């Protein structure tokens, strides 16, 4: 039964595709002459356009953050718990913008889009985009929507990196950056996990060097494996134990190699479902964007020095059982902000769900979010 009529739901929403034909130059040096961005918005932009909040999605996210796509739609947007009337990101007060990033596979221009020069899908010819490039394209989107300055840019994980980059790239166009379960750069271990995922995809015989569209196939096995290994890093040992333990699908051991433990069949199911809906080239691109993100790199590896560019206020949140981007990684960022004398607040929230905790409302998380966003609303007169 859909909840699109629930009082705290934004209801049925329709994504819009915005076309941009002013070329942009990407970090890799390549130019993108024209591109589309798919966008959803919730709430109303006020007259002085001061109440806009940008939501940045994570690795496999997209523009559909809240509400439903039809009355029959059973599943709401990926952050529906947080966005809606009376929710922490209150659509009665804020104008919320959510997009599918460049390089994505949910309607924005990406590897599976048609390259106008060849009239075939870009595939591996689509340039590797970075967090900085996304922020650049989001700034073009803000121009289009008539938003000079975001009240806040909010994101979890890879989305948090975009919020941070906004603070650095456009200090006068952002008041608050909310960075959740994120990191100022990936560790060797993080990159290693990404490499396993990429290798799984590129070594699938159906990958065809990224031109699988031409062969009317997809690297299903590779993408499934990539998702399975990724998924493990999103959960915690405790939450997997709680959910599956050593539970078997049958009564006894079969002494074979099929999925016998519940956790095995869960991972296979998740991986299979993902491989049907997500584009492999986009997955490669997103993991590269993660790997390359390192705002300190251009500042002699001095993060505090990089942060001196920012003038916005920061809220940084981490989760106790997140081992993908541990609280220590958030603290590394916070400490650099303290050294750079930026305004920053930080809390480590106790939650058992590992990295995924940023998508799951818990009382303390919700309280902090509500209090901080309420303050922003008062500040901008929303």
């Amino acid at each position: 039964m859909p909840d699109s009529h629930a009082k705290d739901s934004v209801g049925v929403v329709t994504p819009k595709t915005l076309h941009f034909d002013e070329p942009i130059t990407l970090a890799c040096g390549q130019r993108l002459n024209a591109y589309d961005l798919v966008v959803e918005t919730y709430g109303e932009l006020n007259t002085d356009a001061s109440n806009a909040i940008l939501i940045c999605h994570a690795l496999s996210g997209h523009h559909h953050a809240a509400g439903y796509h039809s009355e029959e739609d059973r599943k709401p947007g990926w952050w529906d718990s947080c966005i809606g009337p009376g929710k922490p990101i209150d659509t009665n007060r804020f104008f919320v913008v959510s997009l599918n990033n460049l390089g994505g596979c949910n309607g924005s221009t990406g590897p599976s889009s048609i390259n106008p020069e060849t009239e075939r899908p870009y595939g591996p010819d689509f340039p590797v985009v970075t967090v900085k490039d996304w922020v650049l394209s989001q700034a073009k989107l803000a121009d289009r929507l008539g938003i000079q300055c975001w009240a806040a840019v909010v994101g979890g994980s890879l989305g948090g990196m975009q919020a941070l980059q906004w603070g650095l790239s456009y200090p006068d166009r952002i008041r608050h950056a909310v960075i959740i379960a994120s990191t100022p750069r990936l560790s060797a271990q993080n990159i290693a996990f990404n490499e396993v995922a990429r290798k799984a995809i590129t070594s699938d015989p159906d990958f065809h060097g990224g031109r699988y569209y031409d062969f009317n196939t997809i690297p299903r096995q590779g993408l499934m494996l990539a998702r399975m290994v990724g998924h493990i890093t999103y959960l915690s040992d405790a939450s997997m134990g709680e959910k599956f333990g050593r539970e078997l699908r049958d009564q006894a051991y079969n002494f074979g190699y099929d999925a016998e433990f519940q956790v095995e069949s869960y991972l296979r199911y998740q991986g299979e479902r993902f491989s049907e809906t997500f584009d492999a080239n986009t997955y490669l691109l997103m993991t590269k964007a993660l790997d390359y993100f390192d705002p300190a790199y251009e500042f002699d590896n001095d993060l505090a020095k990089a942060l001196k560019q920012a003038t916005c206020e920061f809220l940084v949140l981490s989760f106790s059982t997140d081992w993908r981007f541990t609280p220590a990684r958030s603290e590394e960022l916070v400490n650099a902000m303290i050294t750079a004398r930026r305004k920053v607040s930080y809390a480590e929230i106790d939650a058992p769900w590992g990295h995924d905790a940023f998508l799951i409302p818990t009382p303390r998380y919700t309280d902090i979010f509500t209090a901080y966003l309420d303050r922003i609303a008062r500040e901008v007169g929303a």
Partner: protein
Amino acid sequence: MRADLSIIEQWINPGSHVLDLGCGDGVLLDYLQREKQATGFGLEINPEHITTCMGRGVSVIEQNLDTQGLANFEDQSFDVVLMTQALQAVRRPDVVLDEMLRLGREGIVTFPNFAYWRLRWYLMRRGRMPESETLPYKWYNTPNIHLCTFKDFEALCYRKNFRIKNRTVVDGEHQDRWLSRLWPNMLGQIAIYRISRQEDEL
């Protein structure tokens, strides 16, 4: 604002960069930001207090002095480091004081005086660990694990070669009374000290 906080506030120069250890609900930092254009951070571990700080626009960092220390802060990076009513609750007050003066040019500390006459009388008459409005705990569940007297504190400052720049004594209502100024270690309930390293003056 609490009377001890309005005394502290007078000792802080406009535009100071301030670190408040155990900043509570952020009332002092909020005031210093608005009225004295101060900048800085509060450290806190109580979740409700942290949320309140965030809601009122005080920069607050969740950090536990006992388990995490202050190593993430750079030497002499603050004008003033504050600690109100928390010294007696930390695991190593002496180390915290050293750290305060490593991070800041100046430290301001307030704590309850265990030599206050009512506490002395309580112990003498009943022979049991004193309880009062300012110390409303049993010996076994009190967070105040390092209670001291004014004399103890000053002896520590002397041993560490800290300079006591100012000292004020207030009563339980945080009022400055002439009697407690006369005989602070007996009649003062709460002490407010402003300290620095001796060499600052050389």
